[in-house]
């Protein structure tokens, strides 16, 4: 079973690396979102620094959900999903491994690059570090929630927009605590730890629940 999981992770990783729309495009999308905001707001450094963490979080949210609609759709299109359902790996684990690969290829580069982009939003060093930490902890929950949406819309042609409609409301708690944790560092009076721990809890909750929800949705699509 471990061998099957490793093989699935390797396959997803290779596909993400070889097909455009993996890490590089997500990163560029993230960069573009972050650079657009200062142009829209104007050169007010104090304001930028204040809303900087929120901007980074919104950009990470959109960039994470960008590729997630292909998570199961491509396997549905080429018939792989039919075989994955009866593979050695329970479907719940298939979902989990695919999410792990998707996060490693797509979201992890964003987390690593976020301090760099934070500089453009006039964040100070502490805020950069804490924002990156909150993104590292929070983005797995975003990927897992996106996976539920992707599984629900798998049998629909062009379900991308519907996926956003389904998944975005579910990401609100993650966004609230993520931004709260990130802005605690940039001049906020609130402490960092409580929202950060709540964010950890949300990710653990998504880790425990989302694979079952997504697998159930995939099975439902067969019947």
């Amino acid at each position, binding site marked *: 079973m471990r*061998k*099957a999981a*490793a*093989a*699935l992770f*390797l*396959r997803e990783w*290779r*596909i993400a690396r*070889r*097909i455009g729309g993996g890490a590089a495009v997500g990163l560029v999308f993230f960069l573009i979102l972050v650079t657009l905001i200062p142009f829209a707001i104007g050169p007010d450094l104090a304001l930028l620094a204040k809303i900087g963490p929120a901007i980074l979080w919104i950009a990470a949210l959109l960039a994470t959900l960008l590729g997630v609609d292909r998570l199961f759709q*491509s396997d549905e*299109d*080429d*018939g*792989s999903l*039919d*075989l*994955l*359902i*009866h*593979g*050695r*790996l329970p479907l719940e684990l298939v979902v989990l491994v695919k999410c792990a690969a998707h996060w490693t290829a797509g979201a992890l580069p964003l987390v690593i690059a976020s301090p760099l982009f934070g500089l453009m939003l006039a964040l100070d060093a502490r805020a950069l570090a804490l924002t990156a930490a909150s993104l590292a902890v929070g983005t797995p929950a975003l990927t897992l929630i996106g996976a539920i949406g992707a599984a629900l819309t798998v049998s629909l042609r062009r379900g991308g927009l519907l996926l956003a409609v389904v998944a975005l409301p579910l990401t609100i708690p993650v966004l609230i605590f993520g931004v709260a944790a990130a802005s605690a560092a940039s001049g906020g009076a609130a402490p960092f730890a409580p929202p950060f721990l709540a964010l950890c809890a949300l990710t653990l909750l998504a880790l425990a629940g989302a694979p079952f929800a997504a697998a159930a949705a995939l099975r439902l699509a*067969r*019947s």
Partner: protein
Amino acid sequence: MRLRADRLALDRGGRRLFSELSFELSSGQALVVRGENGAGKTSLLRAIAGLAPLAAGALELSGGGDDAPLGEQAHYLGHADALKSALTARENLQFWAAMLAAARPRAGGRRAAGVSAALDRVGLGHVADFPIHALSAGQKRRVALARLLAADRPLWLLDEPSTALDLAAQGRLHELLREHLAAGGLIVAATHAPLDLPDARELRLGAAAAA
């Protein structure tokens, strides 16, 4: 090993495709499903594979010494080849071999062929390291057939297995099918093309559904 279908009925899109369909198949036997377009051949195969619900009836695979669900003892070769176009033929097969391998080797079953051996068997050893998108439709089909060899599963469910295959490849396909039967496997194939199999039984869907 024995596959028993008892009074199956299938619906698709609110339409009853067939009902009261019963057949039995034991080790070393093949069942060729025939019928017009839309008679329900693909639906029957998908139902056996556990990919579509039965409206009525029961399916049972017994005597394999393996209590895994039917779907996990079956290879399903559908219209789609289940290959990732960005990966090479070898990478695709390595993945499916790991993913589809049986938890325990089947008693009396053949050992699964290695990935390279499986590709050689379908005559594609020379393109093993080409990405799938560089292969022709027939070559993709042959890679999909190599998947049946790379992981050992007793029941093969084949939907139009000879699509896009040239004459030589069709000959090779028949050879693989005969070997699988000789090793005690079971085959259910839906096809319009003639299949060169010894004492294959025929099931005609549509007019009168009886085996």
